[in-house]
């Protein structure tokens, strides 16, 4: 198949960027979207041009590196699918496809389609963990966890940290990312001791990183390659509210 591409090119963080047009000829429908970009890059390099920089690694939809806005949709048209698992058979011959990086204040562009998502790591640093230093654990079967609980926790734990939720959100909010981690850990018995402290700290870090607030557009769950539900955000809001109320009474501050 033959396609027309419009791709965001930006030489560096401080330079201005623009959409550049490329012709993609003889593309196989069985190629993945990233393999199509590989082919374009090979052709660019053969004629001495700079290849298009884009983040990618596992190409199996699990590492969360790929971060492409395809025709204005995070990860492209296929629901529950990261761009690396999207194949060209999802497009029509002769179609024009535009490709842009994630756009959010908290994700500065480094080059072309590559953005800096370290802000997500910093949210985890403030509380996205259970404090269990190596060596201190009891037997794995000592705490019983109902299957339904662990299944719901796993639904949230599947988050690959790609940032599609942020890119899709009109407010540039990281609420789905943060809520998924809070749900994963907050549902499990092991996560209870730090539950409210965690909610308080992670939610506040989102503000510090300049992510927007959540106004329940719901775009994030549509874009999420792991189809994480905004039910997690409800859970986050409840825990955050409870944490702020107890904080007023000094309870959370004491456990800090």
């Amino acid at each position, binding site marked *: 198949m033959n396609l027309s591409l419009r791709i965001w090119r930006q030489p560096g963080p401080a330079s201005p960027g623009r959409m550049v047009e490329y012709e993609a000829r003889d593309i196989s429908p069985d190629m993945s979207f990233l393999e199509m970009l590989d082919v374009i890059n090979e052709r660019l*390099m053969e004629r001495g041009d700079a290849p298009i920089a884009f983040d990618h690694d596992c*190409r199996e939809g699990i590492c969360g590196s790929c971060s492409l806005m395809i025709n204005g949709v995070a990860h492209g048209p296929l629901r529950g699918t990261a761009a690396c698992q999207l194949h060209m058979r999802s497009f029509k011959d002769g179609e024009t496809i535009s490709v842009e990086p994630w756009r959010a204040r908290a994700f500065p562009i480094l080059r072309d389609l590559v953005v800096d998502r370290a802000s997500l790591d910093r949210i985890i*640093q403030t509380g996205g963990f259970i404090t269990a230093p190596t060596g201190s654990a009891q037997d*794995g079967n000592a705490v019983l966890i*109902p299957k339904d609980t662990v299944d719901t926790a796993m639904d949230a734990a599947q988050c690959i940290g790609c940032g599609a939720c942020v890119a899709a959100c009109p407010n540039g909010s990281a609420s789905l990312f943060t809520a998924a981690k809070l749900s994963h850990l907050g549902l499990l018995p092991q996560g209870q001791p730090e539950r409210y402290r965690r909610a308080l700290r992670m939610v506040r870090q989102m503000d510090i990183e300049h992510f927007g607030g959540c106004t329940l557009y719901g775009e994030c769950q549509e874009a999420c390659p792991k189809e994480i539900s905004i039910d997690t955000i409800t859970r986050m809001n409840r825990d955050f509210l409870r944490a702020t109320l107890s904080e007023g009474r000094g309870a959370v501050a004491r456990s800090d």
Partner: protein
Amino acid sequence: MIALGSRVPSGPIEQKWDKHRFEMKLVNPANKRKYTVLVVGSGLAGASAAATLSELGYNVKCFCFQDSPRRAHSIAAQGGINAAKNYRNDGDSIYRLFYDTVKGGDFRSREANVYRLAQISLEIIDQCVAQGVPFAREYGGLLANRSFGGAQVSRTFYARGQTGQQLLLGAYQQMEKEIGRGGVTMYPRTEMLDLIVLDGRARGIVTRDMVTGKISSHLGDAVVLGTGGYANVFYLSTNAKGCNATAIWRAHKRGAAFANPCFTQIHPTCIPVSGEYQSKLTLMSESLRNDGRVWVPRKQGDTRRPDQIPENERDYYLERKYPSFGNLAPRDIASRAAKEACDQGLGIGQGGLGVYLDFAESIKRVGEQTIRERYGNLFEMYQRITDVNPFEAPMRIYPAVHYTMGGLWVDYNLMSTVPGLHVIGEANFSDHGANRLGASALMQGLADGYFVLPATIGDYLASSKLSKIDPGHPEVQRVEAEVAEHTGRLLRVNGKRTVDSFHRELGKIMWDYCGMARNAAGLRKALELIPALREEFWRDVNVPGSDAELNQALEKAGRVADFLELGELMCVDALHREESCGGHFREEYQTEDGEALRNDELFAYVAGWEYSGPGKSAQLHREPLGFEYVQLAQRSYK
């Protein structure tokens, strides 16, 4: 001249690790913060080591090439992690896991290391549960298990088909906690390009900032490499695109012996290649063989749809040849059997390179819903890539390069032949011998990172006199300058061919001559082709852009330059090992019915190769392997 002294403690195997832990020197808690440990790689081994070392009180600097440590390739492991918990009451024990692993590795691993691994497997599960890893549970709330190849007990713990992801996130979160506390400093998008050795000890690394291109040195008291395997030397593998051997290869060139480089694992169940543009291969978890049956048509050139081929015209060859293990035969054996079927012209699909993995019978037995619960995400992944629904038609699979058992040689303390340089996880030559059993990589990575290295590195630090190094030290400056020169040289070639085209060609040579089956003639041919290709690379590669910017072509070029050297050593090792064992199958050495034929008299050793300089042949050193507990026998899964 290096010596491969394994430093295995004396005494009965059950007591070695405990005894050793008591005998090792400790670093006083107040002194730990005076030491800096550099951890390269943030996968299961690297992240768990960095987190644990920081909890102990050491200063840790951790480096990864990805934009976040959470993306290391451990994340893609699907099926599970082994532990000898015997929760199923099916006869498992530490001794049985030890036995299965030594046998599964075809008697080419160190008994004491494997025993320790089996012991620690119990603590790993406990640690991961405490961190909140959502392992699958039974309705009663207890941990669930599934079976994996090469074992007759059910000892694999799992979190759907994303076990690696959940274990890595556990280690990553523990490390992020330490980053937040200030114990670990993280350097993402940073690539290690050389090792700094001072007075015979590893004291630092030289890195390139992949965003700005800045070359810097980081100095410390010990260096830990957890940089993964080198399967991408084959170009097409199940590894992530960024996986590379640069850190271990450059450490090798600074004096670390490279052990058993020819031991590579070809995984039997991957999605076959579909075209020239193919950039990587996708694994379908071994756990699928719990419920999937592998078969090919009995007749050559049978082009009927699979559901049109009646039962009596199908060959369930694994069940036929290995009745006691059936579809759960170990990986090396299952891969070779698939190759054999395809070599006989029985393969299915494009190019005849494929066999069926069929779930029809299981779906009939336990229902579609149960199969969906067990493997839902894998089925979806298969359908997304191939456009075929495995609930309706069998999967088409073929073996692909997946893991490397070889790696930098380490002693019982996980230290390489360069004092102070420790190597953990897949990057070391590891506990898997010549073939790794499924669900054992995660176990080894976490055993090394959480439990072994944090104990042994203290002994090294406490018993070494380490003076402070001035960053202006001439040797530091010299290594930095060499790195800058190497990078500059790649850019200056200014030839015509792209880096990928060289990588693809190297991969084809490796797959054809050093892949699932090897022979002397083929390996000799590869040893002519690889140096010629390397020479062409340095004459005609085209790396656009500059070294002072984010330049993905330059990153790739450096890695491929190293693969072009490592590939040659793999062939040298494969040629020298005149026997078949595990994943190393030399066609000249096989039993009458086509099984691997070991030669224990001549080859029951670890081959450790010492770098002797550019253009010179690597020098072979041997670490003899003794088997006191598991009797040397021909491996049988019949």
